[in-house]
């Protein structure tokens, strides 16, 4: 038995190629057969021993402690067991050994784990994403709450309603979470304004993809404060002071800015930092609005202030050029402030405290705009601008509106015809058809001037 074992071991060394895995499989099979063969011989020996023992000690039955199930091996044990019939079903190949057909079973899952390295990588990526999600989510919540707690006292002095979750009796006022990175707060109940919407647009810290995009294109957390002014508390002007980068974006995106103040002006003469640029419909407005206090605040917080946008014709971003626009979008009088939260390199609490004066700046601007009145000629100029825009809009959409009106008329006529056809009594139908005929005739008849000749 040892040579067979040695030779198979020797062969294994020779064929050390990528089928080594299958090689083992065949070796195991061959060893298994050898073991079977040895077992077979052993059991026969045991059977002979049993027979001799039975013969000698008929009276004392000695339990064969080697393996109580040996009697199963003995064919006579079972009545009606036909050894030949069972054997014949196994097909014999040419060498007489039973031909073994191995059914094709795919390698089972648990063969070897290390070939699943890509899957492990994927699962690890998912785990990292989930961890970052929870970490980013809690960081965003902390920043939002810090901003709210630090500004709460100031808000309570100026507004009677703070935080509105839209339900009827407003159970939980306070910050409402729009998404993992956007929190909104509605405050209302103050002079000169209908309400103030504070939107905390934080970085998407909860999304790993955005965190990585942040390294490529750095941006910062932002606070957008939009004050809806009362109709009577704001004069008609459009004014925007923004950093150069956002001025470019705003003048393209915003409908009112692109119409009323397309060109960007420099701000040096107002004593403002040079990284700002001005979009203003009437220059006189800028001069009178940017008083000393506002200029000092802007200079002091130049890196935090992103843009300031006062407009009485505000209607949001430019609508996409869909042609079925038949009427001007409704405009509102708003003051919009966008501030960056300087969280980088600072504790959240400290960064947010630093922004408190800016909220007072917002209230100061509200009162200033309320007191601000345009001069006469500025007022006329503004009104003229608005009328011109109105007419331009009407002209461009005239064609569309005419079409819409024609379509409406068509629709009315068709419905009327349908209603008449449904009528059951024929004479009403006849009368309607006569009237229709007459109308067609009149339309087709050549246009003739009817001359009234006075009877002399």
């Amino acid at each position, binding site marked *: 038995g040892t040579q067979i074992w040695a030779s198979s071991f020797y062969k294994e060394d020779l064929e050390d190629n990528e089928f080594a895995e299958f090689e083992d499989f065949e070796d195991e099979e061959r060893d298994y057969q050898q073991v079977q063969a040895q077992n077979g011989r052993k059991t026969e020996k045991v059977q002979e021993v049993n027979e001799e023992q039975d013969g000698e000690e008929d009276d004392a039955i000695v339990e064969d402690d080697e393996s109580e199930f040996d009697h199963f091996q003995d064919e006579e044990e079972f009545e009606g067991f036909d050894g030949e019939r069972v054997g014949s079903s196994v097909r014999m190949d040419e060498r007489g050994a039973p031909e073994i057909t191995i059914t094709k079973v*795919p*390698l089972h*899952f648990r063969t070897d784990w290390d*070939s*699943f*390295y*890509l*899957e492990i990588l*994927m699962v690890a*990526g*998912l785990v990292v*994403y989930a961890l970052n*999600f929870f970490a980013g989510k809690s960081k965003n919540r902390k920043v939002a709450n810090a901003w709210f707690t630090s500004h709460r006292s*100031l808000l309570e*002095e*100026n*507004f*009677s*309603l703070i935080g*509105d979750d*839209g339900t009827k009796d*407003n159970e939980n006022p306070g910050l*409402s*979470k*729009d*998404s*993992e990175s*956007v929190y909104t707060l*509605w405050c*209302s*109940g*103050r*002079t000169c304004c*209908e*309400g103030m*919407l504070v939107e905390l*647009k934080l970085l*998407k810290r*909860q*999304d790993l993809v*955005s965190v990585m995009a942040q390294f490529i294109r750095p941006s910062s957390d932002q606070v*957008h404060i*939009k004050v*809806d002014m009362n109709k009577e508390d704001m004069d008609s002007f459009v004014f925007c002071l923004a950093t150069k980068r956002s001025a470019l974006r*705003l003048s393209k*995106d*915003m409908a009112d800015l692109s119409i009323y103040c397309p060109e960007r002006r420099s701000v040096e003469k107002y004593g403002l930092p040079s990284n700002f640029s001005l979009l203003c419909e009437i220059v006189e407005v800028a001069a009178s609005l940017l008083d000393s*206090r506002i200029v000092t605040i802007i200079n002091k917080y130049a890196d935090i202030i992103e843009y300031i946008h006062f407009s009485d014709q*505000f*209607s*949001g*971003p430019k609508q996409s050029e869909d042609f079925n626009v038949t009427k001007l979008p409704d405009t*509102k009088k708003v003051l*919009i402030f966008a501030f960056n939260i300087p969280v980088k390199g600072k504790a959240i609490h400290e960064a947010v405290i630093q922004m408190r*004066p800016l909220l*007072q700046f*917002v*209230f*100061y601007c509200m*009162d200033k705009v309320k007191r601000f009145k345009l001069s006469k000629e500025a007022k006329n100029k503004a009104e003229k601008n608005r009328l011109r825009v109105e007419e331009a809009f009407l002209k461009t959409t005239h064609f569309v509106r005419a079409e819409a009106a024609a379509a409406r008329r068509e629709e009315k006529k068709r419905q009327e015809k349908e209603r008449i056809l449904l009528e059951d009594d024929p004479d009403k139908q006849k009368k309607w058809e006569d009237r229709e005929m007459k109308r067609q005739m009149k339309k087709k008849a050549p246009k003739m001037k009817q001359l009234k000749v006075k009877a002399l």
Partner: protein
Amino acid sequence: MHGTGTGSSDPRRPDKEHRYKSSPNTQGAPDDLIPDYMNILGMIFSMCGLMMRLKWCAWVSLYCSFISFANSRANDDTKQILSSFMLSISAVVMSYLQNPQPMSPPWSPVFV
């Protein structure tokens, strides 16, 4: 510099309160479309993961539904996110049940 302006001591007007009606987004920045794009992408990847039994497609669709969940807004309906999760998880499970071969990276030409 108390923001009370001249004269009026207390600027609050409890009687002139306006309830917040979430006006359509006139803030300026168009609402970000990432969750919607990721949702659609996830659906497409899980479909092709299921049809063509590409394992890496199934995994990518799982990532897409995770990303769309992270960026989802409060007023998004959760059914859509749940369905995209179910689809991508079923794509992954199905592609492994059919043949538990380890995954081949997308750049290998063998169609496993």
